[in-house]
């Protein structure tokens, strides 16, 4: 499935300025794994410390929240949530200053 992943400016700094990417994936977890494979600098944001490989990434870094088509994935299947063609993921930081 072709999935668009959008992320905020602080992540865009680590992706050469790209504010979103398109990946092929069937679940939320797989899409995020594709994201961090393409941009390894994002891995430490997205996955907990010490997680490596898709099999080891069973949960998100607690400072990250992911929305699937506007709904928080924590309330709808989590990383195992199935994706359909054209779905959009938004990855945001759960912490920000102010």
């Amino acid at each position, binding site marked *: 499935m072709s999935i668009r992943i959008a992320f905020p400016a602080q992540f865009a700094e680590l992706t050469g300025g790209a504010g979103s990417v398109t990946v092929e994936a069937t679940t939320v977890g797989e899409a995020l794994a594709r994201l961090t494979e393409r941009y390894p600098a994002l891995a430490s944001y997205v996955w907990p410390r010490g997680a490596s490989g898709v099999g080891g990434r069973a949960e998100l870094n607690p400072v990250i929240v992911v929305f699937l088509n506007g709904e928080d994935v924590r309330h709808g299947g989590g990383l195992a949530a199935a994706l359909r063609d054209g779905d959009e993921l938004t990855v945001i930081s759960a*912490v920000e*200053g102010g």
Partner: protein
Amino acid sequence: MRNLNPGQAPIPASVLYSRATVDLTAGSVKLEEVPCRNLEDVLGGFGRSFQLLAERNVTDAYAPENPLIVNTGVLTGTEVMTGLRVYFSAYSPLKVSNKGLPAAMWSAGSGNFGSKMKWTGLDELIVTGRSGKPVYLLLTEGPHVEILPAADLVGKDTHGKIMHLAQKHPQGHVASIGQAGEAYKTNYMAAVALSTDNELKSKDDKCRFAGRGGMGSVMGSKGLLAIVAQVKDKPGKVTPAIRDLNRAISGGPGSAKFREADKQGMGGTWSNYEPMEKFHVVPQYNFRPLADGKVPLLFRENVEKEFVVKAESCYRCGINCHKNIYERKPDGSKGEFRAKFDYEPLDLLATNLGIDNPAEAWQLIKLVDNLGMDSISLGTTVGYVLDYNARHKDRPLLNGATFGQFDKIKWLMAETGMGRLPEIGRGVKRLADSLHEPGYAMQVKGLELPAYIPDTNPGYPWAIAGGHMSMATFLLLVMQGDTSLDYWVKAITERGLYQVRDDLLGVCKFAGMNHKQALESLKSVGLAVTQEELLAATRRSYLRGLALERKQGYEDSDYTLPAQVFEHPNPHLKTPNFVTPEFFRELKTKVWAVFDKEIAAL
């Protein structure tokens, strides 16, 4: 501002900004158009004000020659979402080098005043001198500036002054000080309150603040109690490009953190509590997290059991980042407005002081807002007093208040706001130095720290204004967990400093604009700027901040962290203890190796 070559790459000398210089001693006003010297002059904000401050020699923040510079960014007053910021810059009475010289600072705020000022035709206001009697300034379209008597404002709190002036000047918006600013001699941490549409319509005390650095105290020292910008609103044309940009800003990932859940958001900075508590890094008991399970008492889900929380916004902003607390009536509906719960004031005026009850928290936040003080500086200084008293039960300070003692804490804040407690009003550095116990005073370079513990942020010493709003390293350990020297050198010298970009442009950091969106915003006002040019102007402006610190006597010993970080690591933290003296020494060497060269080349 007039650009004689719109649509092209800006030639600074062809961009003229409108300046009013007011001498309150002489009672004179001079209006002029000033050509820009460089791109940062064109963009505005502190990019311009710090260049002006560098031209002045100021050794006393309350001297008449210390200029208070009020200006806007190039996007203030435009149709770009969050284009409404206004900046107050001066040499600060609060932030001071170990040599005792005041540091240059700016403080930013939202609300309607900035846009109104821009719509009068004025880009910049410089106030020098001192009025013998209380006055306020009236800015009207032209631009015109009048100095008017303000005897009837004396003693009113921030909201009282705003409502009085708003009634007197229809279609005007206000920047004012509270009693704390009037008590400038003993209160160096007064804020500037900025009126909002919501405030004027609802008559609730819902102003915004330019809080940091004591800019309200500088105003008070000049006898300047308020500034009113009175002009009809001038909404611009919303082109399809601006409409699309604003949709991306208000609905995209950049501002998601600050929106409500029903708009795919995280509920604002208040929601920092939960993820940060997982790491036990939410400040408690003077920046010493206890892992005692009390932080969740102020999680939003718990506060909502007792209060109604409503997300509200600044003028025409679709992000709605204000989380306003209202009384919950028996039928569950919204009653009286209580206060705004943002992460900084909520932590530093409550959790960090051992206050875990939302009914007490809102009273403290409201009190501090109404008196017109910076929540961060006041909360951090009071935290020190409570800590000192806990350590010295035999010889406590002031009323002997310690953590959790709401009535005593409230008294300390009220008395400080009225100017009766210079021990607190003059800030934590002076207090701690006078007591010879500086190790647990949460300040860096003389300015109190925001609500992010220094144990996790060795980038603090390179913040040139507010500790987190001018250097974006304060959450990196929690976000990425990297403790390597190389990572932190890059975090400071290549990434964190660009946090100040929006304080040139006149937009709110909560818009979370990426560089592409910032460039589109500039294009919408006729400025064709490349990303390289924008980042270079931002970097130069930041470096000027460091250069200005050196001008004011900052030396190697000023660039450090509270000694407690090095000497007494907190065992409760779930983050690595990596900020050792050795690490920090190496970090300084490598960071200065980068910055020294660039500062010399400015």
